């Protein structure tokens, strides 16, 4: 592999991926609006189609119109902001949000494309040589905190500062359960590479959602909070903080923030699909053989995309059906429930793995134990903090 070879291959993948993800984000916004309309029993966006005709195409032209609108809106820097940081913040957000996809495998591999590309099959991943995989994902998604706090501080606005502070406190609080959920998966796989994690689930046939249900719950809740999606959208709650850290943003910078947040949700969905839902694996359809032809490769890509889309739909469904947490409830859930549960899950995975180390696959005893753990922790949380009690914030020390 020469340097030119790697560069060209990577550039092709990068262009496909970036345009794909950005376009996907644009049309998923449309899907989200449709879903909101469906839940609220009204018609969503359904008018914008092909211009100067009467063809409406169910509103599929809406994202294009939105994008054009953003371009022609004013790009305004108020006088009171710190301009350098103010401009830097949305750039950091977008780079961190999209940069995550460097190590995410989209499906597994496609066969060689012929002479110039060599004879080896091609990984459907931008940087197949990066072994740190999930840690890279973790690191880049932590960088999103910088975008939030820098944007909130540089805006020099009280709403923005409060939103930025709240948001960074929320993001760092939920990063710990996120990491604990990932640790359980890494412990069961023995590798940090995402494709190796999928492969481990495919060879045993046991997706980690079945073997580590508690870890799955913890990870999904933390992923919702990290993406700032609705039960946890305090950083930008419209009513209280007027969009939080991007109150002072407008035009293209605002679009970068909004896109980056949406991409965070897509990243979270892909990660949930890969880490816990088996990635490209479905029993009987996509067996884990290494030698794959075109049909198999396309099938794997399709399976992964369908799973990801399903998780995205779940995100949207939750957004339009759940109320928002109060801030003290949010922090209490993160520190007092999710982190202890995450540690519990980690210890359980470690102990069960150590006990059943020599056996292949998933013994039934461990399976029963991990589901029992989920039930026990659910009951314990419900016992300690039942949903019906007076949950007003404590006013005394």
């Amino acid at each position: 592999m020469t340097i030119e070879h790697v560069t060209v291959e990577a550039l092709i993948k990068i262009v496909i991926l970036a345009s794909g993800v950005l376009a996907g984000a644009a049309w998923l916004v449309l899907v989200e609006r449709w879903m909101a309309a469906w839940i609220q029993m009204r018609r969503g966006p359904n008018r914008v189609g092909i211009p100067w005709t009467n063809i409406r195409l169910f509103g599929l032209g809406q994202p294009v119109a939105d994008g054009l609108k953003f371009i022609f809106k004013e790009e305004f820097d108020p006088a009171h902001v710190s301009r350098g940081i103010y401009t830097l913040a949305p750039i950091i957000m977008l780079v961190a949000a999209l940069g995550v996809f460097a190590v995410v495998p989209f499906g597994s591999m496609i066969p060689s494309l012929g002479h110039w590309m060599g004879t080896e099959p091609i990984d459907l991943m931008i940087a197949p040589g990066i072994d740190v995989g999930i840690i890279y994902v973790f690191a880049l998604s932590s960088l999103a905190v910088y975008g939030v706090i820098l944007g909130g501080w540089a805006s020099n606005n009280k709403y923005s500062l409060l939103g930025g502070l709240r948001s960074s406190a929320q993001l760092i609080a939920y990063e710990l359960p996120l990491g604990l959920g990932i640790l359980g998966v890494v412990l069961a796989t023995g590798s940090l590479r995402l494709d190796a994690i999928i492969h481990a689930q495919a060879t045993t046939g046991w997706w980690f959602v079945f073997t580590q249900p508690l870890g799955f719950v913890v990870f999904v809740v933390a992923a919702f909070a990290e993406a700032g999606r609705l039960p946890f959208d305090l950083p930008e709650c419209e009513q209280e903080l007027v969009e939080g850290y991007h109150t002072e943003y407008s035009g293209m910078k605002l679009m970068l923030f909004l896109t980056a947040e949406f991409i965070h949700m897509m990243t979270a969905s892909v990660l949930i699909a890969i880490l816990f839902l088996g990635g490209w694996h479905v029993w009987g359809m996509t067996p884990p053989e290494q030698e794959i032809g075109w049909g198999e490769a396309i099938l794997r890509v399709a399976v992964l995309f369908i799973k990801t889309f399903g998780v995205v739909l779940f995100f949207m469904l939750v957004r339009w059906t759940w109320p928002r947490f109060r801030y003290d409830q949010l922090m209490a859930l993160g520190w007092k429930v999710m982190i202890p549960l995450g540690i519990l899950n980690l210890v359980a995975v470690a102990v069960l793995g150590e006990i059943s180390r020599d056996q292949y696959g998933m013994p039934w005893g461990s399976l029963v134990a991990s589901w029992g753990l989920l039930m026990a922790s659910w009951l314990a949380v419900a016992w300690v903090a039942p949903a019906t009690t007076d949950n007003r914030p404590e006013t005394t020390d």
Partner: protein
Amino acid sequence: MNLAILPVLLLVAFLLIVAIGLILLGRIFGPHRAGAVKEMPYESGMDPIHDARRRFDIRFHLVAIAFLVFDVELLFLYPWAVASKSPAGVDQAVVSGLVVGRELVFAGVLFFILLLVLGLIYDWRKGLFRWR
């Protein structure tokens, strides 16, 4: 030269170009109209009383410190999580005589997690997570 990191650098460079390019695009095509009210910080129509950069609740600082401690402790667990299962990890270390047995590694990690839990209990009891 190790080429593994090259695609990542290319991706980051590409994204920087895209992000800056989009901002420039808006700057070129958008209108430019300034005004005294438009330059003010937005506070729902009221005139701001003072700068936003003032002291804020110390609690955010405490949470940030707690996060740093726990996050670094979690990062220490990743090498163990990889080495525990992978064939070149703990088992290899036991075979080559680096460590006397898996139990010692496991006991060490459990001790470490115990300290982590104790730290959490301490912070909890000290009211670090109490927001009102």
